[in-house]
């Protein structure tokens, strides 16, 4: 299908990979894209490796299965590299974006992956801006910069609206989340 982007999110239960995929989906839908955002549901376990998915397309989406050959892989926790095959099914020209303090070259070497690798210290950014490690929102900023999936200014406008809905009872965290996205957009590293 033309203009179809498939994304797989790797995270740990409680890190917000499902929320990130849904936020991305909702924002992309506001820009006129056809979207899907869905997690893989298992027993809910804090800390256990979990998956979430996105499909984003200019055309109507009808496929209703998981994503097995993602164009983009988002890794919310670097320790997952020890236990999960995050590059499974990723094509040679695919993109992996990972929350880590390491350099892209180091990740490439560790994974034995020759495609595009981007790194960002999403935990560090989030700890500084929000006060705790919530890597999911900064990872969205890194995703937009690394892939150009959506136009950044429009993305920020729409995601702010989503935050205003989501954090209606604690508006003080909206600014921190917006700053996290902005900083991750600026700080994400490629080779």
């Amino acid at each position, binding site marked *: 299908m033309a203009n179809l982007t498939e994304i797989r999110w790797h995270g*740990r*239960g409680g890190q917000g990979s499902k929320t990130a995929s849904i936020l991305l989906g909702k924002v992309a839908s506001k820009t006129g894209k056809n979207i899907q955002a869905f997690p893989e549901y298992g027993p809910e*376990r*804090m*800390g*256990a*490796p979990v998956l979430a998915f996105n499909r984003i397309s200019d055309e109507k989406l009808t496929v209703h299965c998981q994503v*097995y050959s993602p164009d983009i892989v988002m890794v919310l*926790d*670097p*320790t997952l*590299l*020890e*236990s999960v*095959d995050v590059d*499974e099914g990723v094509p040679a020209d695919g993109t992996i974006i990972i929350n*880590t*303090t*390491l350099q892209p070259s*180091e*990740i490439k070497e*560790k994974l034995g992956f020759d495609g595009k690798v981007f790194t960002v210290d999403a935990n560090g950014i989030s700890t500084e801006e929000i006060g705790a490690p919530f890597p999911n929102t900064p990872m969205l900023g890194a995703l937009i910069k690394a892939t150009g999936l959506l136009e950044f200014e429009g993305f920020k406008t729409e995601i702010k609206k989503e935050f205003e809905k989501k954090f209606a009872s604690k508006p003080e965290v909206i600014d921190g989340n917006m700053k996290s996205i902005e900083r991750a957009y600026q700080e994400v590293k490629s080779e």
Partner: protein
Amino acid sequence: MSKKDKQKPGWKSIPEGGLILEAGNAIKYKTGGWRTHRPELDMDKCINCHFCWIYCPDSAVVSEKKEVTGFDHDYCKGCGICAHECPVDAITMVKEEPSTEK
């Protein structure tokens, strides 16, 4: 199915009725991989009250000859209950570093 699921046994070779025929096989399921923070014990501070040993939901606190000696990292999920319950602050949670993490 993921690659991992495809490798699981087929319908001809698994026990009927969803039975688990092996008692205590939960020990094979190592939950240490869920951990983002690991507990570290300061032996000098520890008074061997065994609160951590009692509270640990995964029986991952190791006690030998009535002394707490450390943690079983195969099963410790890094929940931090031990550190929270310790009356003398002998346990601290430190960030788990993957092998390539700086």
